[in-house]
């Protein structure tokens, strides 16, 4: 195979690859199945996937996914291949590599127009051009030409993303379950390997794979490290791979990870997480579920997923809760016509109603939202939960945002995106405007777990007006400047740079209900830390997003220049920068393109190797406890958690998990903060009894006086 590949790769002269990423792209969504090569721009069938390996390193909630795929042209002719690849939500593409002449050529980021000019110059002289650019907000495409008969092409994409964290459960999704092209066979004829190594400063107390419970092997070597693995031959790639793990942070607090090398300014990521003490008793609430039953929901089981999720949510409601279900396509329809207590009968009727819905027609959400608002009761908070794939008609979007802004005062709107093709930017925007939040359901995930977690979010108090201030350390460029609301289970992350190491006073201000919180903690910024280089890219990526948001509508040349500078410096594809892959180093020199990304990738890989070494040491340490002679009661042996999770992960008690104290992980990285406790004084049952007794006695006394006065 190696010789064959070599012969084929020799025929590829120079390959230029341009990755053009638009602003929405980097905030984009999971889209199509894992990268596919389609011959002749999609007209000539798909090239066979002979190998597909995914290596994921999760370091404190930031995942680095390295996808390597090998394609083979099974046709007896030279073809042009169209490579498509999904970029999950909030992901930053950090590298694109192709194997040319048997050597991995790492792409470099340059200004978009320049990248295109270079690509065109190769195309004009027909030196095997390749072009990779964004098709829409969710898809990257690259053309490779030529791929000879029987030849193989190896490609590798690396992207960074922050994981969705939900009530202490962090979820990683490798998107595979998507609307594939007609006729596309997404099965890997060869090996499909998926490996996750996850490290966390906050101890991990449970790990599961909701999507591949029976097939995946999950091993927890240590409270701060677990490994998940899935391997198959000729595997069907139409199902997302989902790995979820639960972190244990019983108290609200701050967690810090930092990166600093040499004397340069450092970068940090600070996470504010709501702890268990913020949990409150579930006050009765009103819910209106607004369920999209338009035609687009028919695909990929999205309507079924929505039905299951709403059904699970309704089942979890208490009798004091009330609910209504509205379905909509081009018109809205209600189940009860009024907000109804969630008793057994109404739950049964809801299940029957949901089962009878069919997906058809267009998507017009506005009137359904208006109808939902009409169920608001001044004395109770109304939660409007919209489940949709977000494919709202383009012309209706502005009106929709206005509708959300104009909602009644006691209404919160929560958007649940269904499926991997969901228009995340739109749903996210709607939720932001509504003071609620957006969540996204993957088909591979456990909908009951998601429903329960989402319900917990709705019933937990949110901290609003969150602000974090720093004193000392020369902290600057903190992003985001305005922090979002803190929901239970949805940590707030902020990134920043610092000039000096040492102690920094961090003040957290927030409003929890009516109470003001103003708490300070002293954190330690490290002098040197090369274990987390990914946060540098994430900081730059967030800064670019911030600049892009500011620049929307008015293209400011200064902003564009700053985006290009950041994109090139941190190798990030943006609306104004692109990746280009050239045949060899000489070609890069010819175009005066610095090999910044090549160096950065080298550094990142060295760092990941270092992390891997640490993890290997942990594995070795835990393996020592294996064997009959070494097993000690309550010992720290590896915990196998494959197949079906024994306990419902959403409710898995911490005590059911291995009770191990975290190992010495160096300097302290987490700080608890105290939240204000509120107290009041109700009259209470006994108080009213006393008042009642006094009133009765007083009335009796009056009566007695009257009787005395009348001589009765």
């Amino acid at each position: 195979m190696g010789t064959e590949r070599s012969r084929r790769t020799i025929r590829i002269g120079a390959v230029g690859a341009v990755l053009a990423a638009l602003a929405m792209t980097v905030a984009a969504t999971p889209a199509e199945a894992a990268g596919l090569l389609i011959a002749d721009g999609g007209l000539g069938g798909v090239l066979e996937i002979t190998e597909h390996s995914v290596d994921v390193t999760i370091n404190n909630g930031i995942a680095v996914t390295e996808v390597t795929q090998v394609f083979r042209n099974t046709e007896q002719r030279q073809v042009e291949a169209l490579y498509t690849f999904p970029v999950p939500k909030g992901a930053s593409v950090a590298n694109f590599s192709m194997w040319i002449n048997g050597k991995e050529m790492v792409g470099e980021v340059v200004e978009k127009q320049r990248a295109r000019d270079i690509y065109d110059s190769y195309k004009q002289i027909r030196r095997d051009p390749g072009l990779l650019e964004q098709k829409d907000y969710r898809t990257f495409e690259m053309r490779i030409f030529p791929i000879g008969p029987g030849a193989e092409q190896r490609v590798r994409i690396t992207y960074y993303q922050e994981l969705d964290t939900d009530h202490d459960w962090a979820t990683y999704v490798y998107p595979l379950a998507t609307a594939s092209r007609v006729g596309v066979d997404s099965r890997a004829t060869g090996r499909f390997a998926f490996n996750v190594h996850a490290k966390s400063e906050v101890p991990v107390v449970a790990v599961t794979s909701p999507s591949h419970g029976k097939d995946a092997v999950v091993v927890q070597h240590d409270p701060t490290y677990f490994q998940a693995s899935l391997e198959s031959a000729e595997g069907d790639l139409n199902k997302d791979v989902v790995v979820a793990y639960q972190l244990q942070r019983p108290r609200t607090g701050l967690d810090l990870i930092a990166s600093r090398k040499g004397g340069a300014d450092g970068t940090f990521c600070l996470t504010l997480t709501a702890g268990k003490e913020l949990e409150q008793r579930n006050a009765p609430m009103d819910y209106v579920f607004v369920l999209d039953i338009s035609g687009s929901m028919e695909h990929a089981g999205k309507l079924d997923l929505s039905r299951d999720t709403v059904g699970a949510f309704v089942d979890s409601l208490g009798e004091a809760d009330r609910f209504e279900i509205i379905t909509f396509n081009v018109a809205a329809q209600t189940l009860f016509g009024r907000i109804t207590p969630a008793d057994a009968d109404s739950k049964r009727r809801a299940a029957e109603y949901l089962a009878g819905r069919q997906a058809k027609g267009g998507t017009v959400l506005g009137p359904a939202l208006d109808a939902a608002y009409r169920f608001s009761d001044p004395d109770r908070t109304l939660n409007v939960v919209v489940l949709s794939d977000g494919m709202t008609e383009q012309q209706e979007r502005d009106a929709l945002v206005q509708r959300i802004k104009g909602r009644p005062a006691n209404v919160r709107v929560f958007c649940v995106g269904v499926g991997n093709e969901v228009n995340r930017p739109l749903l996210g925007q709607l939720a932001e405007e509504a003071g609620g939040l957006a969540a996204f359901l993957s088909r591979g995930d456990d909908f009951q777990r998601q429903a329960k977690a989402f319900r917990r979010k709705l019933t937990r108090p949110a901290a609003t007006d969150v602000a974090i201030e720093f004193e000392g350390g020369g902290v600057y460029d903190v992003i985001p400047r305005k922090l979002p609301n803190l929901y239970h289970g949805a940590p707030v992350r902020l990134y920043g740079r610092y000039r000096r190491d040492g102690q920094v006073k961090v003040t957290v201000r927030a409003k929890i209900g009516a109470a003001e919180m103003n708490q300070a903690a002293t954190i330690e910024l490290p002098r040197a830390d090369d274990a987390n280089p990914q946060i540098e890219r994430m900081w730059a990526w967030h800064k670019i997003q911030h600049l892009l948001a500011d620049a929307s509508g008015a293209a400011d040349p200064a902003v564009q220049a700053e985006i290009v500078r950041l994109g090139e410096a941190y190798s990030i594809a943006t609306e104004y920068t692109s990746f280009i892959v050239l045949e060899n180093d000489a070609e890069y020199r010819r175009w005066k393109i610095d090999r910044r990304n090549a160096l950065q990738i080298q550094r990142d890989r060295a760092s990941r190797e270092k992390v891997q070494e640490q993890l290997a040491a942990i594995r070795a340490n835990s393996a020592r406890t294996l064997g009959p002679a070494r097993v000690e009661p309550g010992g720290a042996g590896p915990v196998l958690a494959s197949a079906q999770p024994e306990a419902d992960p959403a409710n898995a008690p911490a005590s059911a998990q291995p009770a191990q104290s975290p190992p010495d992980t160096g300097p302290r990285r987490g700080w608890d903060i105290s939240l204000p406790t509120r107290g009041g004084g109700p009259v209470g049952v006994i108080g009213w009894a006393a008042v009642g007794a006094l009133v009765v006695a007083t009335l009796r006394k009056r009566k007695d006086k009257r009787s005395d006065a009348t001589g009765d």
Partner: protein
Amino acid sequence: MRPATDLSGALRRRATDVVLAAILVAATALQVCPGAQALLEFDRAGIAAGQYWRLATCNVVHFGWAQLLADAGAMAVLWWVCRRRGVPAGWPVAMSLMAVGPAVWAWGGVDVYRGLSGINCALVASALADAALRTHGQGGAGWWALLALLGARSVYELITGRGIGPTSLPSDVGLAGAAHLVGLAVGAAPAVVRRLARRGRTVRGTNAVLPAITGNGL
């Protein structure tokens, strides 16, 4: 012409009426001004920074309409009871207004406190103690028992931070038992002192009379 003592008593009652009415009006008005509530509530950090008015004004702000309605309703009823039974309400209201905030501060555990319940506790304790003193026999013991039950409830709240039975507070708000306990104490104190004083007078009187009887008889 009305005697001077009656006049001063009427004036005191009128002043108490004005104060109680002002408290109820202020509490209701403040409920629609969240900004003002934040400035007036018991906020430990604010008090530490010198905003001492919060120690007193925390009594007239509430966490919600439900708490306000329950507290204000109870206060209105107790006001009526005190007027009808001739219980002096000026002392318990004034003392609890001043004592509740410092008690919450001293006990700790609560960073933010709001509510009229401390004053209500003072009023109810005052009325119960008065009733106990005016009632002889088992009736009096019953009133004392009710007062003791309220005291026990407050101790339970103080220790556990939880209430007994449903409350009018939002679900994320705990109970400040210290406010209730100090309210009961300042409300019951005058009556208890009166009772002790009366008992003391009774005993002294007996001692004074007995020798005379003894002297006369023997």
